[in-house]
């Protein structure tokens, strides 16, 4: 069970490594990362011309199981993650039943074990049934393995309850992940409030719907001293609020989704329901600010908010369509094309936001190639020409606004615990 990944450019920001090296894996564990490793009887994986990184971690996905298996299940979601270059994902609790007790956390872990593809971490609900009324059994869920708590998809509108959630979660040193949305401001909006909503007459969600909740949760985090993570940051002022909070030493981290640094509200002009996502696609100014936030470190992680839906969920009037983008299989080429190749992020910075940073936020022992680590490794081809084809997605969700886009770069091979779980066709 020995493997050597030879000749690739190893990029491991957890240890400040960036150079041509070999990676020696034995029994699912990284044994060494060094120049010209020769091991007898080892299987050789040729990575010349490629980059070799710690396995990518997507800290925000919707696997839809249990309850919504027509959209995705743990099996298809795991295949999609592997095909996207991800070795670990953290799944949100808006399933049916909701992940709001230890039984459902265990179910997720059992299914992940059965599927045996990528590592799956459960994010538990903050409130029972995601209703925003009573705290869910966080201690029990934590004991069963939940890595964070979130009512993602719905905000905790009750500020008093959010305060208690932050205080309670702090006992286990896990973050509360805030889906920041003031539902009185977003009301029944479906796209960004701005020029496009003025033209199309679709109901707008103002940037402020996100920003007032980011501000509120930052203040509550500051007050309680608890860890807060802001999901899918999409507006300029949100970035600014988080930047200032970090300067003050508030324990806040943040993520951005690929669609929020690549697409603007203009994409909605065609009424393509695949552009319907929450938070909505924002203005060009917001997109710039999100990129700036990624660049200066205000935004720690890139997470896809992978939200698969059925064809029927999206093949309808814009107002009736479901929110969400099936994003886990397009993230790597989008990061390469829009962040790395444009100079927004260096290769190391980008890999950091896809590996060690989300690992630290979730408190999981992943995201590094230091000897002794689990051999979760992603090999990426920066030069590949990618044409997005939703029909080739492993995910059941074909709902992508990037279909037929021509992008640069692609995952090449995904290795979990020393096992090759996916490799690019024709390789």
């Amino acid at each position: 069970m020995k493997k050597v990944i030879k000749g690739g450019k190893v990029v491991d920001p957890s240890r400040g490594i960036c150079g041509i090296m070999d990676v020696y894996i034995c029994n699912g564990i990284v044994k060494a990362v060094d120049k010209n490793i020769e091991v007898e009887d080892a299987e050789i994986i040729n990575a010349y011309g490629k980059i070799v990184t710690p396995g990518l971690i997507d800290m925000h996905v919707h696997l839809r199981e249990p309850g919504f298996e027509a959209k995705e299940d743990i099996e298809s979601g795991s295949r999609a993650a592997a095909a996207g270059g991800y070795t670990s994902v953290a799944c949100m609790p808006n399933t049916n039943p909701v992940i709001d007790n230890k039984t459902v956390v265990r179910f997720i872990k059992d299914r992940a074990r059965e599927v045996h593809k990528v590592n799956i971490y459960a994010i538990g609900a903050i409130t029972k049934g995601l209703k925003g009324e009573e705290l869910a059994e966080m201690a029990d869920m934590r004991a069963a393995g939940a890595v964070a708590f979130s009512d993602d998809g719905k905000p905790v509108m009750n500020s008093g309850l959010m305060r208690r959630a932050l205080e309670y979660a702090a006992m286990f040193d896990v973050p509360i992940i805030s889906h920041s949305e003031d539902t009185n401001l977003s009301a029944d909006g479906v796209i960004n409030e701005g020029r496009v909503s003025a033209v199309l007459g679709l109901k707008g969600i103002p940037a402020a719907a996100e920003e007032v909740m980011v501000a509120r949760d930052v203040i509550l985090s500051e007050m309680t001293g608890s860890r807060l993570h802001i999901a899918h940051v999409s507006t300029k002022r949100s970035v600014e609020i988080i930047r200032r909070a970090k300067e003050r030493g508030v324990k806040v981290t943040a993520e951005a989704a690929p669609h929020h640094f690549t697409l603007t509200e203009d994409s909605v002009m065609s009424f393509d329901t695949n552009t319907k996502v929450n938070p909505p696609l924002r203005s060009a100014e917001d997109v710039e600010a999100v990129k700036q936030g990624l660049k200066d470190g205000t935004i720690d992680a890139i997470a896809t908010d992978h939200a698969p839906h059925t064809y029927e969920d999206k093949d309808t009037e814009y107002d009736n369509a479901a929110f969400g983008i099936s994003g886990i299989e397009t993230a790597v080429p989008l990061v390469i094309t829009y962040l790395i190749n444009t100079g927004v992020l260096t290769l190391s910075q980008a890999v950091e936001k896809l590996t060690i940073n989300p690992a630290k936020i979730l408190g999981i022992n992943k995201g590094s190639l230091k000897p002794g680590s689990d051999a979760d490794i992603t090999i990426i081809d920066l030069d590949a020409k990618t044409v997005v084809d939703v029909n080739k997605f492993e995910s059941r969700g074909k709902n992508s606004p990037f279909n037929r886009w021509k992008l640069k770069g692609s995952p090449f091979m995904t290795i979990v615990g020393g096992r090759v779980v996916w490799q690019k066709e024709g390789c």
Partner: protein
Amino acid sequence: MLKTKNLLGLRELEKDDINLILDTAESFKEILKRDIKKVPTLRGKPIVNLFFEPSTRTRTSFELAGKYLSADVVNFSKSASSVAKGETLKDTAITIQSMGVELVVIRHPMPGAPHYLAQNLAIPVINAGDGAHEHPTQALLDIFTIREKKGRIKGLKVAIIGDILHSRVARSNIWGLTKLGAEVVVAGPSTLLPPKIETLGVKAYTDIEKAVKDADVVNVLRIQLERQKKGLFPSLREYAMYFGINSRRLNQAKPDVLIMHPGPMNRGIEISSEVAESPNSTINEQVTNGVAVRMAVLYLLSGGGKIDEKGY
């Protein structure tokens, strides 16, 4: 011949197409004055009015327009919510197309529904109002009426007053009028003006008198009573006092200002009866012109070209 296959909105409609529709409507208006209001132009043409929102005027107007042209018009009414529970909009429309219908007129509470239909159907689709997005035939009849009364559109100042935020009539009028060279201003309480409305090429005011100053046309929009319950303005009384169109405010406009309203009116709220019934009011004529404009649209989208004096 029109360049467009569908009439989805005036934003995407070219100026030449707008003018062709207006010119054609002029010929058809003559038919409405005849004793026997029927020409055989669209004989044997099945048309369906697919209405997902209650509407009397627009539906009747389309129905009569079709019948005056000898088309076979069928009305199909359904509430959008019942569709959500059962058959989808797409399936409903494809079913109707499969029955041999050759043109669909759709009214729907959701923006983009006609565009969605047009993508899925081979036959032409006419938008008879989609949520707060567009209502192209209403704007065309408004523009037709202005052109008939003023002899031109270019250089006129048109003030649109009221609930701009939720108004498909306002949006379609803005696109059509600005394409033909009019200056368009909009006005209403700040809560009923969409953010960034200026990017559509109009000036926005909250002071009604400033908006109507020197206007050639004042188009007053219906205020929907349920907006008040949603907290968009405090009371109908206050709305009428500060934003309603009455003869005192109209003194700011040109003496020969045209008064328009897409109906149905809330007298004493957005418009005073005195103004609605003044000689400058074209409100009833708008309704007549609506039939002529819809005849033109049905005819042209069915593949018709310029028409002779008999109307076919």
